[in-house]
């Protein structure tokens, strides 16, 4: 698929540089004129009335940015023989990420296992921050994998996945608050409760597909959040629930006391121990999610999910009970969401409905879609890029030197998100990893590219 730019008529070659310069100059002049009032002049309220301040630096940098940007676009895209965007598309399409997949996943797995020690050794002064970020990314990987069962395998577009995350988190928080449950006791219960709610959601939407299903699941997510927000006596409403117990290691708490983890093993107390422990909990939970999913894919139920995604009527005519198939997809997907939710609660120690907004659902879905529906390694890459990317924005403080002290790069994360989404969907409409590994192999492995199938088929 070529991008639309490559089909533009190519202008005469001879004066392309001069043309580009002239065009860039015009654009810069426009910015100078328009920007003079918007950027160059600023009014401030002073004792004697308004005073004008001139911000020449800002104006000139805006003009320079536009000039350089327009020139670059002219040279490489608009007037170039072979637009760079076309080549980009070529690169994105040409790279066989899936062939890389096996090795990449092994390397990533090995890195994930040693990650906390890697950071404590190489970044001793910022290790807590990095491990915390790794925990966050790992949580989203797990959520992505959980949602992948529903959206990627069974083809049921679920916009309310965060509801199960919330159910898991609140299950643990309430069990701890009211009955003194610890994390490990509450974890299976939280998963079961989330699965139960998955079935509850599943029943009314059994007959729905595509857009209609998406709307109902969206509403379901909002209902759960609004109930949590308004049922003050039970959930604490907007105040949330605090004092959620931390996870223990075989009864050992990660505290400074004499019966804590550090004292028991004769180590110097360090709060990093708890972070490392949390990291390994979510790492193992995520790995379990992955292993279970991969295993299920090879079992009749997993194949039935995929067949359901492809063609529901054909499924029924082969004697598959589509009701049960859909409900198990919802339930199992929700269960992993619930596990992740109760991990979230124990990690934060405090939860409120604010953490479970539609935006969370959207981010998890974006991770699944960007990674490539049904692709496990794609979810990992997308999580690292998206969640890690947002965090990276926080470290771009130097940009405020250019754009003024009030500039906060994190404010632009949605903009960048959107841009990334559009670019991926233009160049890789089926996500980063758009191939699907067959579950049975006869003699040799043949990859199945999804790009030749009509888009949107089976959703």
């Amino acid at each position, binding site marked *: 698929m070529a991008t639309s730019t490559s089909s533009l008529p190519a202008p005469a070659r001879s004066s392309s540089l001069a043309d580009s310069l002239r065009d860039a100059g015009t654009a810069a002049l426009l910015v100078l004129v328009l920007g003079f009032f918007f950027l160059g002049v600023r009014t401030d309220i002073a004792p004697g009335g308004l005073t004008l301040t001139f911000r020449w630096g800002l104006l000139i940098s805006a003009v320079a940015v536009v000039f350089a940007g327009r020139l670059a676009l002219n040279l490489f895209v608009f007037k170039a023989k072979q637009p760079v965007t076309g080549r980009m598309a070529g690169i994105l399409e040409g790279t066989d990420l899936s062939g890389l997949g096996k090795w990449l996943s092994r390397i990533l797995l090995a890195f994930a296992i040693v990650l906390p020690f890697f950071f404590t050794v190489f970044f001793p002064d910022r290790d807590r921050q990095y491990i915390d970020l790794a925990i966050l990314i790992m949580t989203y990987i797990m959520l992505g994998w959980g949602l992948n069962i529903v959206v990627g395998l069974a083809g049921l577009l679920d916009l309310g996945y965060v509801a199960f995350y919330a159910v898991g988190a609140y299950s643990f928080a309430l069990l701890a608050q009211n009955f003194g449950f610890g994390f490990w006791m509450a974890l299976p219960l939280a998963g079961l409760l989330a699965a139960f709610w998955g079935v509850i959601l599943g029943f009314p939407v059994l007959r729905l597909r595509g857009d209609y299903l998406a709307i109902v699941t969206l509403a379901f997510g909002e209902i759960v959040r609004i109930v949590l927000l308004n049922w003050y006596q039970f959930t604490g409403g907007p105040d949330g629930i605090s004092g959620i117990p931390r996870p223990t290691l075989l009864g050992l708490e990660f505290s400074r006391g004499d019966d804590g983890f550090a004292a028991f093993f004769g180590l110097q107390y360090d709060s990093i121990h708890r972070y490392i422990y949390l990291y390994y909990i979510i790492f193992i939970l995520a790995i379990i999610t992955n292993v279970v999913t991969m295993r299920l894919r090879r079992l*009749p139920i997993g*194949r*039935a999910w*995929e*067949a359901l*995604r*492809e*063609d529901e*009527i*054909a*499924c*029924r*005519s*082969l*004697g*598959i*009970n*589509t009701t049960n198939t859909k409900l198990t997809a919802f339930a199992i997907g929700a269960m992993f969401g619930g596990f992740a939710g109760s991990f979230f609660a124990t990690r934060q120690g405090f939860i409120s409905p604010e953490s479970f907004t539609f935006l969370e659902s959207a981010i998890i879905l974006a991770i699944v879609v960007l990674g490539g529906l049904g692709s496990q390694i794609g979810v990992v890459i997308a999580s690292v890029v998206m969640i890690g990317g947002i965090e990276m924005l926080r470290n771009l403080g130097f940009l405020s030197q250019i754009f003024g002290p009030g500039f906060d790069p994190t404010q632009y994360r949605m903009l960048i998100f959107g841009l990334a989404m559009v670019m991926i969907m233009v160049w890789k409409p089926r996500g980063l990893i758009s191939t*699907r590994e*067959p*579950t*049975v*192999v*006869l*003699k*040799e*492995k*043949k990859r*199945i*590219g*999804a790009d*030749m*199938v009509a888009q949107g*088929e*089976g959703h």
Partner: protein
Amino acid sequence: MSANGQALLSVRKVETYYGKIVALRGVDVDVDRGEIVTLIGANGAGKSTLMMTICGNPQARAGQIIYDGQDITNMPTHEIMRLGIAQSPEGRRIFGRMTVMENLQMGASLVAEEHFDEDLRRVYDLFPRLKERAGQRGGTLSGGEQQMLAIARALMGRPKLLLLDEPSLGLAPLIVKQIFEVIAELNRNDGLTVFLVEQNAFHALKLAHRGYVMVNGNITMSGPGRELLKKEEVRAAYLEGGRH
């Protein structure tokens, strides 16, 4: 029309509606054990509706469908399929992103695992092309191969009754011939009972033991296939000026 009263499938006065629109107006059809029965008719006559009604999707609003002595009129689709009926639905409906092998596995999901290899060999013998394409994605097969896959997938369920909905749709004459030969072979060698819905009246009537003609939701004619083929009304309506 049942000749000897041991009908495997009998459809009695079945009426089916899509909302308020009537699609079948009291249809009677019998399929005996070991028979190939075909149902021909024009576009929109209700042929596919009858086939889908037998499968319980949509369910008949009136009348009765008896399969192997059991009333299946109001059973859900997946339970009907468990009784030994397999369907190759209209438009093939193979699983496009799954491999040929996986498609066949889906067909065998109701059958004990120990039969899988044997059944697989059998359908590969019937359709050697599928064996060559085993690892290939269903969506990349040609139309004829997809139809073979749809039939093979249905056969993997070890059916007693095979329902085929327009297997000749959009296929080259040579492929149609090939597929019809396979159907005849299955019937002859394995005694498989086949109910075939077709627009390609000539081939279908030649193949079938008995045939029914459907017009506007009613059965208007029935009889042995070759006799129907000779009838003037059938020739005029479905054969002249088209096909073979």
